[in-house]
Every structure is written in structure tokens, then in C-alpha cells.
């Protein structure tokens, strides 16, 4: 039974251990590795489907660009805080209306938030922001502008990286917090307390409430979703273009990259995939077992 003995076996080899077989221990049968499988369960992607999914990434990128544009306008004094507040209010009302309309079309499973709760939240937002805006104003006074810009840039990047693109509705805490942190930093650079207040309300609108509306839109009216994405992208490029041409070109390049080039790369690289599978692989649990314990 040791290695290299008994060369000519009369019975066929079986892949079992419990039987003493007339083969040496290091015998290699013709059926060696016959259970080896490659690239099992590979998902084939279609280019346009991937592009459509990538649209939400581009849309979020544009959101950030729009926010930056608004801040640039405010900083240069081209946009008065009152106008911004008014616009925000109108947008918020419109968005809330749309949200309610979309919610009422199909009765959702979870219990809906009451109007009163929404109103309460809004009151909290406004009062806290208004109350803290003088403090926030002086907060970064002694910190150098470059530091504030760098910090905001990093935070906005973090927002983009950690944003839950598949389901933006309950906003991911880290991404939302990063965005709010960045907006507080940027808002504190503005000339007045009212400016800060307006800027923060705008940030709340763009980073917290807009993704909720977008999620609704995607669930209820998927056809419009693509249009909204395209619209946001154009809006972002246009807005940034009015302030800096280079910024707009860079944004356009980035958007093109994310929405068109990256999906192409994914699909071409997938052909190179070589994954070995066999009986030695750890079995995966596909069922959802959490209902047994919760």
C-alpha cells in the first residue's frame, strides 16, 4: 500500500478511503481532478445595463458639483442668502410634494412617517442650524483656508466613496456625516451668519433629502430615473462651467469615465477571469437564516 508498489491492478480505482485498494498511496488515476470546475456561476453583464447603473454614481458626483457651485456663488457674493433660502424652500416644498405623490401611488409596506413627524424634523433642522450658525461662523476663523479646503475635499470624497449607491434611502451615516462636515467647513468660510445658515440648509437639501426622493423615483418611476440622472449631470457640468471652465471639463471627463469607460473595462476584464472550483471549496450558505433567530 505504500508509494510505488503493485503496478498492475485488476479492479478499477475508486475515490474512497474506507476500502483498502490494491494501489499505492501515491497512485494517480485518470479521474484525478475530474471534479475541477472553472468560473462557475459567472455573471454576464450587458454594457448598457451597467451604464445605466453607473448613472447613479455620476448623478451623485454632479450633486457634489452643484453644491460646490452654489458655495462658490455665495462666497463671491453673487448669490444672496435670502435668494438661496427662498429657492431651497421652494425646492423642498416641490420635492416633498413629489415624494408624497410617489408614496401614495403604491401603498408601501413600512408604516409611513406622519406629516407631523416630518414637520418636527424640519423644525429641529432649522432651529438648530439657525441657533448654531453664529458659532459655526467663528469656528474655523483661525484655521487657514487651505486646511479648510483640503478637509472639505477629503470629506466630500469620503462622502462619494461611502455613499450607498444601491439603496440611498436611509442615507449611510458615514457618507452623510462626511458631507455635512464638509458643508459646515465650507459654510463657516462665508461672510455672515445668515450665509452659513442658508448654506447648511442647502447642504441638508442636497445631501440628505435629495437621495430619499431619488430612491423613491427609482422605485416608482424607473424610466424617469435615467432622465433625472442625465439632467443632474448636465446641471452639474453647466453650473460648474459658469464658474470655472476647467472644472466643468474635468467633471465632464470624470462623468464620462464613470458612466461609459468603467463599465467597458469591467466587461472586457471579465473575460480574463479564471476561477478554480471543486469539492474542496467551502460551501456557501445561500439561504437567509436570520429569520430563525429574529
Amino acid at each position, binding site marked *: 500500500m505504500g508509494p*510505488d508498489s503493485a503496478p498492475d491492478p485488476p479492479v478499477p480505482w475508486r475515490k474512497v478511503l474506507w476500502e483498502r485498494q490494491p494501489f499505492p498511496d501515491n497512485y494517480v488515476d485518470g479521474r484525478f481532478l475530474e471534479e475541477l470546475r472553472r468560473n462557475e456561476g459567472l455573471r454576464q453583464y450587458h454594457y448598457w445595463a451597467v451604464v445605466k447603473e453607473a448613472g447613479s454614481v455620476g448623478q451623485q458626483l454632479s450633486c457634489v458639483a452643484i453644491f460646490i457651485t452654489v458655495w462658490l456663488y455665495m462666497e463671491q457674493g453673487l448669490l444672496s442668502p435670502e435668494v438661496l433660502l427662498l429657492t431651497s424652500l421652494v425646492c423642498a416644498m416641490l420635492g416633498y410634494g413629489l415624494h408624497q405623490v410617489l408614496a401614495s401611488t403604491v401603498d408601501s409596506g413600512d408604516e409611513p412617517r406622519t406629516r407631523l413627524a416630518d414637520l418636527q424634523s424640519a423644525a429641529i433642522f432649522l432651529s438648530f442650524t439657525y441657533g448654531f450658525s453664529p458659532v459655526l461662523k467663528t469656528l474655523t476663523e483661525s484655521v487657514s483656508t487651505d486646511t479648510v479646503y483640503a478637509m472639505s475635499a477629503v470629506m466630500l470624497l469620503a462622502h462619494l466613496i461611502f455613499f450607498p449607491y444601491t439603496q440611498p434611502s436611509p442615507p449611510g451615516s458615514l457618507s452623510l456625516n462626511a458631507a455635512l462636515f464638509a458643508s459646515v467647513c465650507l459654510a463657516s468660510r462665508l461672510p455672515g451668519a445668515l450665509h452659513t445658515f442658508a448654506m447648511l440648509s442647502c447642504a441638508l437639501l442636497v445631501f440628505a433629502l435629495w437621495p430619499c426622493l431619488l430612491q423613491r423615483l427609482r422605485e416608482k418611476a424607473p424610466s424617469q430615473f435615467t432622465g433625472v440622472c442625465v439632467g443632474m449631470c448636465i446641471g452639474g457640468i453647466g453650473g460648474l462651467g459658469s464658474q470655472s471652465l476647467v472644472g466643468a471639463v474635468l467633471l465632464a471627463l470624470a462623468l464620462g469615465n464613470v458612466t461609459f469607460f468603467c463599465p467597458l473595462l469591467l466587461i472586457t476584464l471579465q473575460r480574463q477571469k479564471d476561477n478554480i472550483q471543486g469539492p474542496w471549496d467551502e460551501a456557501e450558505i445561500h439561504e437567509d437564516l436570520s429569520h430563525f433567530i429574529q
Partner: protein
Amino acid sequence: MGQRGRAVLQSNASQQESSGTSQDALKHNRKHNICMVSDFFYPNMGGVESHIYLLSQCLIEKGHKVVIVTHSYGKRKGVRYLTNGLKVYYLPLQVMYNQSTVTTCFHSLPLLRCVLVRERITVVHAHSSFSALAHDSLFHAKTMGLNTVFTDHSLFGFADISSVLTNKLLTITLCDTNHIVCVSYTSKENTVLRAALNPEIVSVIPNAVESTDFTPDPSQRRDDRITIVVISRLVYRKGIDLLGGIIPELCLKHPDLNFLIGGEGPKRLVLEEVREKYQLHDRVRLLGALEHKDVRNVLVQGHIFLNTSLTEAFCMAIVEGASCGLQVVSTCVGGIPEVLPEDLITLCEPNVRSLCAGLEKVIARQRSGAVPTPASIHARVKNLYTWRNVAERTEKVYDRVVGEEVLPLHMRIQRLRSHCGPVAGSIFAFVAVLDFLFLLLLQWLVPDQIMDLAVDASGPFGMWNQESGIKKRTSSQKS
């Protein structure tokens, strides 16, 4: 203790007398001086640990000299003796993660060299690919010109980044290892693929079970109910989440069903929550960590043995269950289908539905009484896997390995570079050269002839075989 000291004295005397004839005797009888190396050994408990211990005992019985090298466990460091003069070196090396030592490729060389030289080792046998010390010893043994054997106890995937790295390391250390032992055919396929080996130098030698320790005792069962026994560590890899799904499903259907679960681990929480939610406190008993000697007493209380592992190279637990006369239900993963004949095991897919169906079938058979008696199952399983057989087959591997020649340094470098890819191969060829230079430095600092040769406790000139009185004394030292 005093007697131990005396044994040392006498052995040296006899050694000097017989040193002239020893060389011929060694070749003729093909007795080897084997050094087992692994990070995992007693007092740690587990499959690899008991494999090394029992294999060593059987090899000592066959007249070979066996020493074990592992890292120190807490206050247990230095040199210890176990039953039958099995000498264990607990080397003071830093433990990094999961009892595996830190590896720098070099720092273990001085101590390993000392052990290999003073014990006059002919074969280095490393165990477990998780053990950094085993990899180190394979590398250093080659530098010192010794033949090596490696036993792989576990299966690995190919998909994630950690296994890619581990597989590369395995490719490098196994590149000039003389022979590899795997515990099942699946494990062999896996190892051949991972380390890019020639399948001819890979032998399959299954683990074994001390079947005399696992005898059936039907009187311990309660016949008014059916008991399912699960004995495993409660971790994800053992499929405890599946078990958490099976328990409520079956318990609702069969009011006379009981679960007896032995073992400890992070997934205990899952089972406790299931028990809590479905009010199964009287029917699902969690026994916690079991000592090896208690396992049999738990097994004989059950009718069915359930194994829900998600991956397993050999699975001794199902053999132990069958040896105690239980019906075995198991997931069909890894090497499990090779272990028991079809009529002794019910194989299921690793999901709750399939496992439940398999269990229901067995429960129905059990109810109808259409199952073989425990004694007959035991009689069939008893002689399937014995340590003596394992030792015999391993001995043949050693015989084959000893005859092979060890590659000189330049050949070794060539082989590393051709076999392990241009980047990793070159790096490790460089490491091999450094290792060789380090060895030369050590040989200059402490020449081989200055090291005292160790007095054999086991093996052809072992002192313990000759004095029966000492055996008993020191076996008690194990505790």
C-alpha cells in the same frame, strides 16, 4: 526525576558500546530518526495535535525514534517527555495569531538546527499548512540537507486574497519537499493544485480513529425519544448557522426529537438564540467544550450523529460517531464522501432543506427499526482506520524519502526559480542563499561537534524501551 537522570547516564554508556555497529543496523532495519514539526501540539487540542501524537506513538512502537518540535505554550517551554519517551521540544518562539508563530524565515534556524543536529534527525516531517513553524522547518531542513515530508490537514479555496498568498507560500515551501501526505483524495487534488505539485509525490493516508475508545453502548440511549448528537467547534466553518435552521424545523415536526450539542465557540450565541426563541430549553442541550475522554459518553447517548461542516478534509467526527454505532448524517463537502461507505452515512447538500430531508429519512428508518444494530456498525467501522495502518503507510513514505538525494544549493535555486514564478522564485532563491550563509555562520560559531548528542529516549537505542519502570513514571508527567 532522579530515575530519568539515571536513564540518561546509562543510555550514553550503551550508546558508546554500540556506536560501531549502529550505522549498519540503521540501514538494515531502516529505522528513522524522525522530527515532527508543527505549531500545533499538546496542550493545544485538535485534530492535527492528536494526529501527530498518535502517529508518533505508533512509529515509536515500530522502533523509530521520534521527537516533536513545537512552540512554547505559556509556561510550558523547554524539553518535555511524554509517554514512551516521546520527546517534545517547546521552543520559545513568538506566537502571532491562532497559535501560529511569527516567521521571519531565519530566526528559528539556530534552535531548529540544534534540535536536528543533536537528535541526529534523518527525516523532517512537518504538519499543517497553517503552521509557520512547519514551513520554516521545511525550508531550513533543505538548507541543512535533510529529507522532508509534509502532511496537509486542511482544504483551501482559491478565490480570496488570503488564500492566494497562502498558496504561494505553500508552493515555495513544498517546491523541494520530497513527499507530501494528504488525508483524503479531495485534499490531494486541492494540495496538488495549490502548490503546483507533481501528483506522484503526493500520497493519500487518511487519519485514523482509536476505535477502542469509541465503542457503542445502546443502554445509554433513551428509547422513547430520538436524540441527534452534534459534536464540533461552534464556528461558521462547521455550519452552525445551518444547525440553527435545522433545529426549529425538525423540533416542530417531531416532538420526541432531542438535540445534544457538544463544543464551544462564537456561534454558540446563534444556538442559544434559537433555543430561546422556540422555547426548546428541555430539548436542545448545549454541553459546552468537551474533553476528549467525554466525547464517547456523549456520543453513545444519541441515535443519529449530525455533521453540518461547510468544508472538511477528512472529518474524524463522523467516523467516531459511526464507531459508536450512530446513524451518520452529514453534508457532502470536501473529503467527507470518501470517508464512510454509502450505507453507513446519509449525505446531504449543505442547506437546511436537504439536511432536514436527510434527517427525516433517517428518523423514519430509526422509528421503523430498519437500521443495523450499533454493534454491527461498530464492527464494520472498527478496522477501517487504525493508527497502526497509518504508521505503516507513513513508514513507507519515510523509506522512500530517505533514499532520495537532497538538491545542492545551486540546483535548489534553479528549482525555486523555475517552479515558483520569476518574482517569488527569485526572492526566495535569495532567501535560500541567505539561509545557507546564516547556517554557515552558525556552524562557525557553534560547530556541530561541540553540540552534545542527545540521549535517545525512543528509537533503536532508546532507553525507555529497556527500562519499563521509567515508562510509568514519566507518563504521569504528561499531566
